């Protein structure tokens, strides 16, 4: 019997301060062997438990894409015991990763369709994985237009700046970034995600919307998507309830009878409409 | 008892009918023999369920912190002491609270009943004056009510509410001073004996925190046992040391605030002797500062005040 509680030892090779406020770090983890890497086949939208030996483990969405072999990437906000320990960790330290866990974005369903990815703040991690996955030359042809709408309070809080710059230049993707208030030197858009979405979102016809962000952003963007004509079956969300086991046993991440860890974290709006609002 | 119950009902109905309060918190008949259960009545009809019996053991002060609106509470002596302590801690607004005081000569301890019935289930209890008839499946025993009372009730000298807006029933005669006999006995043991006793008692703890949640003065937004940054204490119930630490810190935190109502011990499903620790601190506070929590509205909480001549036997002097 495979023991789903055992983490896979990996080496933390990069501890990168992602945002200006220093509260988000991006960690690059390297597998110790090819065999280990093979034992961790994942898809965009899945998460894993990161384990700091001596401190515990906590769940985080995987920010890297399976099209980027050799390493895993996680962008982590400093909020609890494990994330704080990670932030302070020296490069070269041994940590653990347990997973991949949960379901993933329905990339098969997206084939032949347009996709609009809407992200706010540091909830952009698994969305990065998704965009990177679909943009891979072997796969880009499977999808129609790819639009990314990404907002943060200010430019310094946007994640993955280098990639955003590359996407800006790419004909394969239409990137719209926005910040809450005008800042000197910012040439992009200014405004909140719901308003920007209303303005720039592609036609809902033949299009999936994938949305991740703080609750308030979700709350105000949802009516916009409905107004634009996105049916609940084509609005995809990722939940992040508190989790421990990640395998549907410890009981804390349930929304109604569904466990976010095992049955999610990816749900369609239509699925969530059938569940209580405990997320 | 029936008369008291009727008087409580009448008082509550009147308060609700006249809209003097929005809510009356009292006791209804519970689902087990000898069991009162907290009732929240918002209409005179709901207040019809109010009752009074020897199983109204919960400390209702626990439900009064930070309440909106005008609330009336049916309160025994110990409930009122906790209310007084909580008013002083700004947890209860006296202006919005109406106290229906009930003099109380003690509540029956179901553990003692079970012991008399030899572990058989109590199915019915009849109280006639000072005698109780306990009926189980194919068995019946009689006992003096006084022998069945909770230890906290036996030790209690404040059966009469120290403040109230309305009194139901007759005030009881004053009781003798508390002699803390069992605490003195415990103090006279050697450190090793005390340690052994604590270990055996707290190895039973399952860390369900019923004691903490039943305690009217345990209301920290985040209890130190739950805190994980830093993690002050291990979360596993297997570690008796941690179980003891939990109780010791809890007891120290309620020193000078604890009214010795015994709610913690009554709530414990594992039957741990929790009052041994709480009463030890009650005794210490009384001896050191001549103070008792919640016995009048004037005294300041013993450990929240300072005078230059406070005894400081705990200071180590070179």
């Amino acid at each position, binding site marked *: *019997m*495979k*023991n*789903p*509680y*055992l*983490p896979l*030892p990996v080496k933390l090779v990069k501890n990168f301060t992602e945002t200006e406020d220093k509260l988000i770090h991006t960690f690059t983890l390297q597998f110790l062997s090819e065999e280990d890497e093979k034992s961790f086949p994942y898809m965009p939208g899945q998460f894993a438990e990161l384990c700091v*030996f*001596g401190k*515990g*483990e906590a769940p985080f969405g995987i920010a890297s894409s399976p099209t980027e072999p050799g390493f895993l990437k996680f962008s982590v*906000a400093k*909020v609890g015991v494990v*994330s704080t320990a990670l932030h302070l960790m020296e490069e070269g*330290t*041994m940590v653990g990763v347990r997973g991949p866990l949960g379901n993933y974005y329905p990339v098969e369903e997206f084939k032949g369709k347009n996709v609009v990815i809407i992200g706010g703040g540091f909830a952009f991690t698994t969305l990065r994985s998704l965009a990177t996955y679909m943009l891979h030359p072997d796969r880009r042809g499977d999808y129609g237009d790819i639009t990314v709408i990404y907002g943060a309070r200010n430019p310094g809080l946007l994640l993955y700046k280098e990639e955003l710059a590359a996407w800006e230049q790419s004909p394969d993707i239409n990137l719209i970034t926005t910040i809450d208030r005008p800042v000197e030197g910012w040439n992009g858009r200014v405004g909140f995600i719901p308003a920007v979405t209303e303005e720039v979102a592609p036609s809902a016809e033949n299009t999936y919307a994938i949305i991740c962000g703080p*609750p308030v952003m979700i709350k105000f963007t949802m009516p916009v998507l409905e107004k634009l004509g996105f049916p609940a079956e084509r609005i995809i969300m990722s939940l992040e*309830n*508190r989790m*421990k*086991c990640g*395998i*549907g*046993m*410890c*009981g*804390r991440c*349930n*929304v109604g*009878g569904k466990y976010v860890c095992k049955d999610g974290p990816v749900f369609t709006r239509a699925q969530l409409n059938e569940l*209580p609002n*405990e997320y | 008892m029936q008369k008291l119950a009727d008087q409580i009902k009448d008082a509550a109905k009147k308060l609700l009918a006249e809209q003097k309060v929005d809510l009356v918190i009292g006791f209804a008949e519970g689902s*087990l023999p000898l*069991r009162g*259960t*907290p*009732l929240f009545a918002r209409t005179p009809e709901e207040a019809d369920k109010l009752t009074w019996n020897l199983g109204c053991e919960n400390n209702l002060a626990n*439900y009064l912190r930070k309440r909106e609106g005008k609330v009336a509470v049916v309160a025994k002596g110990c409930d009122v002491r906790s209310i007084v302590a909580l008013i002083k801690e700004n947890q209860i607004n006296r202006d919005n609270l109406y106290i229906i005081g009930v003099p109380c000569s003690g509540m029956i301890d179901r553990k003692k009943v*079970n*012991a008399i019935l030899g*572990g058989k*289930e109590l199915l019915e209890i009849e109280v006639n004056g000072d005698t109780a008839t306990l009926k189980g499946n194919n068995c019946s025993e009689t006992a003096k009510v006084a022998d069945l009372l909770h230890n906290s009730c036996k030790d209690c000298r404040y059966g009469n509410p120290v403040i109230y807006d309305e009194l139901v029933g007759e005030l009881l005669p004053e009781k003798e001073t508390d002699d803390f006999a069992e605490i003195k006995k415990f103090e006279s043991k050697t450190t090793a004996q005390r340690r052994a006793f604590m270990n055996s008692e707290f190895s039973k703890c*399952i860390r*369900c*925190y*019923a004691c903490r*949640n*039943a305690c009217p003065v345990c209301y920290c937004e985040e209890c130190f046992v*739950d805190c994980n940054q830093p993690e002050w204490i*291990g*979360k*596993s*119930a*297997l570690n008796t040391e941690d179980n003891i630490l939990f109780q010791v810190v809890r007891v120290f935190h309620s020193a000078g605030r604890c009214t010795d109502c015994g709610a913690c011990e*009554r*709530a414990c*499903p*594992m*039957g741990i002797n929790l009052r041994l620790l709480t009463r030890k601190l009650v005794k210490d506070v009384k001896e050191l500062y001549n103070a008792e929590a919640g016995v009048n509205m004037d005294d300041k909480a013993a450990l929240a005040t300072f005078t230059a001549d406070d005894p400081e036997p705990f200071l180590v002097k070179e």
Partner: protein
Amino acid sequence: MIVSKNDIPSFLDKLIGEYQVFAPVQEGSYTLFKQICSGADAALTDGNTKLPAKEIIFPQSEKLFSYNVTAEGAKLESIIDDRKKVVFGVRPCDAKSLTLLDNVFNNDKYQDPYYLTRRANTILVGIGCNSPASTCFCTSVKGGPFDTKGLDLLLVDIGDAYVVEVVTEKGKTLIDNAGFASASEADKAAAAKAKDEAQVTCQVNTDGLKEKLDVNFYDPIWEKIHEKCLGCGACTYLCPTCHCFDIVDDAVDCNGCRVRNWDSCAFPLFTLHGSGHNPRTSNKERYRNRIMHKFKYFVDNFGEIACVGCGRCIKNCPVNMDIRVVLEDVRGSEARLDS
């Protein structure tokens, strides 16, 4: 087969050589399942143990694995308990609870090796309940005082002896060489009589309960139901079907163990996010979750109610939150079934 009560201690003594034997042991005013070193320690009294038998298979606290981490790698070692066990004197309700928990620890995607290994290596010897307590309502939740679900052997108390009923092959192997005599027709009749006479007097009506819970999540009744609940974990820790747990590290620097401890959905921190957001903000949401989990979510997921009617939560709640009353209130709530 039949075994005299006088022979039980020596039977257990024989088992102790080969198995870890657990049986109810008197602890002050109640009994608890403990591993026994001598058959004489078993206290086969009336009624339920204070804590359910689930703790033998799913302990309140257990080490999952140990680790030793260096710059080169991490050495991890699972700590799986595969010792052979016999649980003697388990009540049918407690045995049934394990069949419910099997769904959780062996779900559609994952297997819990700790639970499942113990479960596979444990033989459950039940004793039927001749005199169920007034708080027992097993027959209302598809159990019964002599129900054999989850058991390997069932013992029926006929006074000074037990009539032994073999439920599984595993159970049979346990008594193959025990030298028990065959039960006479009179013994069998006595066992049948004991079963007949055992009355579960308490009935909880679950008709329409699930249908009501399907639609009354937002019903105002929950405001009233939870009101007196203190939010402690007594009911969850004493419940044979509650299975929530927490995982923590017990370590010095990088060397130590990962441990799991029972946790409770009654506690506010159970669902608190790192961000401070809490999906179940108040006691109302938490208490509702407990009822929903047992009587709706579990039914939706596994087709069975996650309550075995043992009555422990009723007897031990500090404020007499009685689940029977709660369920009656839920059934009487005004939520419209057609809405």
